[in-house]
């Protein structure tokens, strides 16, 4: 287990920024913290990185409690803070060297690591410039480079793609996916496609609490508890909806068949089946065997947006 969080809380006066959350993160997972602004994502990350102390609860990183071994756990983590603060009066090379030294990279390996990171993050052409002169995209890459300079086991990134243009976002996401093969990655975002594109696990956080936990597809399909399939069929001669219903009711995992409407001789029907069962093929076969003219067949994809809105607005 890479990270274990137990009953973690952080209160600011009456405000419960983080409210008794627990979760575990395995090696090699790319976990996305998803939530509206002010949900407690940044606070949780700041506690994991020992920037803030929790009001109560424990964090165990690679078997070490951050309360007693903060220096050791900090060594294991590469951190890109929210809004990516950097020393604008330093040049890129000096800055990466400075961070490498503080992270305890061996003296003989510092220049090699700096060169590697400059390559990986694509900042070779700006390495002699002052950070203050860099564009937002380059600044973000410098931020990533400093987070990874000591080859940490765990990468924590607070909104790694904020302020980037679409091309840069794709680049950074690819980089994160690559890193995720050998590292544990936690990133936070309030951009939903980002989670779908990069993460293999999502924690939806709202008002300091975890409201959902699963893979992006689990959250999408499993959210209703059943699958929905919409079908349009040309009304066969001599058939009415009840007779169709009987035909389709033979399917094993079917739960409910509803007629949505009938218009110009076309029936629009909603099938609801058990979670995880994909009955599109069987529906097609029944139509074919009975010579029904199938006009449309599609499965409803609950978007992560729907899940997110429902979970975070319900509580509001």
């Amino acid at each position: 287990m890479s990270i274990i969080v137990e009953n973690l809380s952080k209160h600011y006066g009456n405000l419960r920024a983080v409210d008794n959350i627990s979760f575990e993160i395995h090696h090699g997972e790319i976990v996305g913290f998803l939530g509206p602004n002010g949900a407690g994502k940044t606070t949780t990350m700041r506690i994991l990185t020992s920037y803030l102390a929790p009001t109560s609860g424990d964090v165990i990183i690679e078997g070490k409690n951050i309360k007693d071994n903060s220096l050791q756990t900090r060594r294991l983590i590469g951190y890109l803070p929210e809004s990516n603060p950097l020393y604008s009066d330093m040049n890129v090379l000096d800055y990466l060297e400075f961070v490498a030294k503080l992270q305890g990279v061996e003296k003989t390996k510092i220049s090699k690591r700096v060169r590697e990171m400059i390559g990986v993050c694509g900042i070779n052409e700006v390495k002699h410039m002052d950070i203050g002169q860099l564009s937002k995209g380059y600044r973000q890459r410098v931020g990533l480079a400093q987070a990874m300079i000591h080859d940490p086991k765990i990468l924590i990134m607070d909104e790694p793609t904020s302020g980037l243009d679409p091309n840069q976002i794709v680049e950074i996401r690819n980089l994160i996916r690559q890193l995720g093969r050998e590292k544990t990655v936690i990133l936070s975002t309030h951009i939903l496609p980002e989670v779908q594109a990069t993460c293999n696990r999502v924690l939806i956080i709202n008002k300091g609490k975890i409201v959902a936990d699963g893979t992006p597809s689990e959250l999408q399909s499993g959210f209703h508890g059943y699958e929905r399939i919409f079908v349009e069929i040309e009304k066969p001669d001599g058939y009415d909806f009840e007779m169709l219903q009987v035909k389709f009711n033979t399917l094993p995992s079917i739960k409910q068949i509803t007629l949505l409407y009938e218009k110009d001789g076309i029936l629009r029907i909603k099938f609801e089946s058990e979670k995880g069962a994909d009955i599109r093929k069987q529906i097609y076969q029944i139509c074919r065997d009975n010579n029904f003219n199938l006009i449309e067949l599609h499965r409803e994809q609950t978007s992560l947006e729907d899940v997110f809105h429902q979970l975070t607005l319900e509580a509001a």
Partner: protein
Amino acid sequence: MENIITIFKKELKSYFDSAMAYIIIVVFVGLLGWFFTSSLFLVNLATLRSFFETAPFLLLFFGPAITMRLISEEKKSGTIELLATKPIQDYEIIIGKFLSAWILFVIALLPTLIYYFTITILGDIELGPVIGGYLGLILVGGVFIAIGIFGSTLTENQVVAFIISFLFVFILFILDKILIFAPGFLASILEFISIDYHFSNIARGVIDTRDLIYYISAIVLMLYLSTIVISKRRWA
């Protein structure tokens, strides 16, 4: 220790990369030279006394000025979060920054040795008070810089940091000038706290352990308080 050196080097370089260091050195040396030479020929003595008497006045501004941004800027730009999440102790950050400002101050003092050499040409000068004077200045500078660092930990705003630190050092400085208004039992305490009292001892060439202890404990206390302030957020 290595982390302290890393931070120290970074801060010292940033002083010299910006115009800050040069401006400070030129202003400091220039103003001191003006005060020094304007009275030198009136007094007609081969002594650096007037130099050592005016230097602490300038330090009142100089100390807070070179330290005001050291922590406040980190807080404002958020880079304190970068530093604090690296595997280093908070006191290493404070000490590294303190040393960089202190060394900058010593570097700014170096050109003033010209005044000493000029006077050795003009007449015989006693070496003891000169060594004592420089030692005293370096220590007073250290205390003012440590106070400046403390002021800088209290706010995100450089100007506010400067004002807080300036008020603090100013009070320390004038304490022994208001002694006559203080009741007897307080007077000796105030005198001991006053920075100028200890300085005048050293500037006479008398190096007393009590004075050294005063300066060093003042520096340590201020750095300790600064560390507490920046560590505060880590407390549950």
